[in-house]
């Protein structure tokens, strides 16, 4: 099916919504509380990649968002109708977010008692203190959407889960149970090229990652826990996760497929005011359960992770944020000893810095932002400049870029060098 076949329908729908507000249909729309946006965007690679199209992004989407708030329960339904010219596979895959429809949220929220909330269904989940860095947030991310220039909200992929929150006097307890593992929407080569260690080079559509999916209900399940408490102006939290590495970082030599090894994560965070800004500290322990000794070359070792962040408003609508992030590989000598010959070796410590600058101009209608990831140990970087202008209350025009680079082909950001791209987008919200 021609992906643009849907476009006239989407445009028609998008066209009807705003117009109807001023007509007799406004009453009906108010009752069902239907909102959303129509968003169209395009991007191209700034370098050529023989295994990929030069077009990195060419898509339109209509998001419809409906909320029903009753006395006993709240229902939320939000989904995107998509016409995507770059994606080859048109069939709907709600887990990977492929096809002409992506369900973002479909959930029911109830409060069985005064001290408890229960949210059941497809939902977006986030916690932790990092800015575009995640230590204790093991909820699914869509790295592909993030790297090709979709709106940043698409970095968070939906979870199919039950979230129970308890509110005793002394804090908040959140328990999230995901009966069937929700992996990240990871980079697999069909759209963005990645480093393939088996081939010893970057690969794209010529060598799409082959992955052993985990999708057994109640066997491949995940449990996420958080206990949080405010102490004065400080927010403290403890985290736990029982599940799997979110990207297929393991490898099964028998089937020659990538796997999702088992993983537990334990962590803590603190956030609060410091010297006229906001500081945050987050720690986590990644317990790689399938390779506790660190001797298995096909399963990642355990890691300790640390994040320090600080953000400050410099006045005149200018905000600056900096973060330092450390990934420390545990059992490093075991890792080195078991590393197969010819495989690129990672460092014991991966250091990463981020910088965020945000400036608002023209009565806050123009937002200029810049986000940079820089790793001195990997000698690679990822830059995200973006400009966004609100033409009217409904129309927004934006443009930006995703620049990757590095000295080596195998490092986290260096492997994406040929995916560097620029994009522009126009959105109508209603």
């Amino acid at each position: 099916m021609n992906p643009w076949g849907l476009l006239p329908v989407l445009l028609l729908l998008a066209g009807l919504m705003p117009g109807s507000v001023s007509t007799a249909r406004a009453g009906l729309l108010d009752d069902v509380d239907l909102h959303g946006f129509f968003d169209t965007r395009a991007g191209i690679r700034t370098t050529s990649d023989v295994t990929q199209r030069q077009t990195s992004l060419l898509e339109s989407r209509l998001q419809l968002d409906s909320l029903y708030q009753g006395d006993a329960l709240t229902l939320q339904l939000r989904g995107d109708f998509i016409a995507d010219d770059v994606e080859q596979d048109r069939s709907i895959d709600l887990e990977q977010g492929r096809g002409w429809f992506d369900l973002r949220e479909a959930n029911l929220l109830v409060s069985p008692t005064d001290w408890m909330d229960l949210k059941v269904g497809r939902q977006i989940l986030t916690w932790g203190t990092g800015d575009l860095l995640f230590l204790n947030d093991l909820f699914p991310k869509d790295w592909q959407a993030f790297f090709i220039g979709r709106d940043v909200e698409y970095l968070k992929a939906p979870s199919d889960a039950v979230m129970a929150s308890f509110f005793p006097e002394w804090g908040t307890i959140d328990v999230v149970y995901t009966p069937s593992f929700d992996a990240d929407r990871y980079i697999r080569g069909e759209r963005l090229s990645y480093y393939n260690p088996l081939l010893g080079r970057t690969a794209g559509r010529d060598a799409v990652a082959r992955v052993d999916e985990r999708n057994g209900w109640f066997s491949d399940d995940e449990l996420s826990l958080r206990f949080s408490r405010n102490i004065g102006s400080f927010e403290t939290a403890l985290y736990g996760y029982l599940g799997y590495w979110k990207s297929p970082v393991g490898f099964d030599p028998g089937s020659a497929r990538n796997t999702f090894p088992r993983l537990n994560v334990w962590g803590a965070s603190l956030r609060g005011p410091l010297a006229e800004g906001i500081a945050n500290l987050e720690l986590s322990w990644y317990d790689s359960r399938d390779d506790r000794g660190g001797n298995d070359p096909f399963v990642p070792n355990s890691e300790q992770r640390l994040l320090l962040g600080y953000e400050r408003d410099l006045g005149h609508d200018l905000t600056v944020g900096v973060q330092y992030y450390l990934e420390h590989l545990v059992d490093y000598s075991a890792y080195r000893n078991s590393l197969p010959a010819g495989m690129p070796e990672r460092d014991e410590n991966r250091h990463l810095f981020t910088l965020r600058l945000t400036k608002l101009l023209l009565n806050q209608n123009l937002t200029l932002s810049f986000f940079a990831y820089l790793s001195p140990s990997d000698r690679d970087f990822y830059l995200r400049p973006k400009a966004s202008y609100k033409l009217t209350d409904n129309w927004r025009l934006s443009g930006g870029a995703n620049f990757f680079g590095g000295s080596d082909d195998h490092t986290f950001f260096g492997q994406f060098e040929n995916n560097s791209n620029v994009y522009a987008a126009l959105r109508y919200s209603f």
Partner: protein
Amino acid sequence: MKRYGILVLLLLWPALALAAPSADEIVARANKAAYYAGKDGQAEVKMTIYDAHGGTRRREFSILRLNVAGEDQKFYVYFKKPSDVRKMAFLVWKHVGGDDDRWLWLPALNLKKRIAPGDKRTSFVGSDFFYEDVSGRGLEEDVHQLVKETDDQWVIKNTPRDPDSVEFSWYQVWIDKATSLPVKAEYYDKEGRLYRRVSAEKIETIQGHPTVVEAVAEDLLAGTRTVNRFSKVKYDIGLKERLFTERFLRRPPREVTR
């Protein structure tokens, strides 16, 4: 977006009528009338921003306010329009004499973002109102001087103790004797020019509290103005402090979504 902030309350200003007070007493009374009416309050706000070329932008939001210990307050602001900020919420724990704690709830990311304390004299949500106009300016930050008294108004001149911390050199406030409400404020820049005016256009008495239901802020140099209209104002609705927490950012209360 981050300043989608407190907005607030030029509303909720009750009144006390007293006699022969000092400038500091008048200002304290006006502050109380303007920002602390009742134990709590709620309002719907429709904001219209007029630019110098005839263009307009609109914002709509609900506000909940709770007076807590001392002079501190908590605010919950829930955005309804424009559509790209719909369902975003802004939570403020105001600490008099210190930095406020502020969070922005981004529903599409399900993210509670902590916002660094900012310059309170920058635009609130892109309007001609400043964050400080709507959350209140610390009384101790200015020297207050009674410059004029008429039958129904006091006129107070306010000079900042730390001139480098603000963009004005001084400002003058007209306070209505009957209601104690500040009804007009005019700001002069470092060159001595009148450049900014905030005024109460309509006042109604709601549950015994004289309340500004229409307020205007003008940037006289840029030629822009913003009108705030308050409706469904209610006081003493019995808001609980727990409403001003992450739980109710995730699950906006009916008080704001209705």
